């Protein structure tokens, strides 16, 4: 796969969609059949390594999926190169900050 191929984004979009589907499906089943009774139980679940890893994977999949979507919209509709680079740059920084913040929150709960 070439670094700047169209296929990379195509694959990322579909793989992240599968992760989102699995997490949301699993989450819905959990809420339907054994919902946590209190906020403490929620926090306890997220604080376990497995729960934290699942939430982190979900958050990263959301951000990756969002990145491909934003990039597609920009490539389709924004044609002036400076504006395109600005929007893509700001989006990348925003998504990276969100990823860092999510990781920080999860790690602080898990420790």
């Amino acid at each position, binding site marked *: *796969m*070439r670094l*700047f*191929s*169209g*296929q990379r*984004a*195509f*694959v990322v979009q579909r793989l992240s969609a599968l992760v989102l589907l699995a997490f949301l499906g699993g989450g819905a089943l959990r809420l339907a059949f054994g919902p946590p009774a209190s906020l403490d139980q929620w926090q306890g679940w997220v604080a376990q390594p497995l729960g934290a890893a699942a939430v982190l994977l979900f958050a990263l999949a959301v951000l990756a999926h969002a990145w491909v979507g934003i990039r*597609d919209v920009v*490539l*389709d*509709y924004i044609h002036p190169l400076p504006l395109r680079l600005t929007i893509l740059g700001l989006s990348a920084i925003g998504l990276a900050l969100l990823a860092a913040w999510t990781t920080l929150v999860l790690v602080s709960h898990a420790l």
Partner: protein
Amino acid sequence: MRFRIYRLDPETQARPSWREYDVRLEATDRKVLDALERIRTTLDDSLAYRRSCREGVCGSDAMNINGRNALACITPLEGLSEPITLAPLPGFPVIRDLIVDMTQFFAHYHEIRPYLITDEPPPERERLQTPEERAKLDGLYECILCACCSGFCPSYWWNPDKFIGPAGLLQAERFIVDSRDRATAERLAFLDDVYKLYRCRTIMNCTEVCPKGLSPSRAIEHIKLQQLRRST
């Protein structure tokens, strides 16, 4: 029957306009192209449009009829709501009235190298295929390059210079799956590009309007799957 037709004469008009026609049709006038011929011969001989075979084979008279791309020669007048609105193919530069500039469209077609590529010596007669290999071309080779699909594709409207478009990609698939072609890897590598292939957002307008009942969106998905198989 009432018509509302897009008019543009670049020599005299800075902006396009719409002109209304109320034309008396004969009993033999069954298709939109018949009505256009009647308008031109009885009401307005300045109306410009392309036509050739009159039977859905040449693809010359593709246009937007009541908001949907179609061939005028095979679109029945019966059932169309009045006034029947005729416009050039959306997203294409207009040369005059209903005639559009197809230069970019055919440039994309040539880009995909629409011919067999092989380094094998020519056989005494034809290059043979099994019935199964030949069957893979069904649904692909019938394309008449009318551009109804590309002219109804939002991705092609936004990036007509870079996105090959559904018609060109359907033709690309026609040669990718041809058992006699030896350039499959090169063809797939050429299309592995952010713009050429991957601007397709699976909107499927192309399949919706193809006058030959073909499915460019299925062909595009097949190209993507083959690229995935080769890269894993």
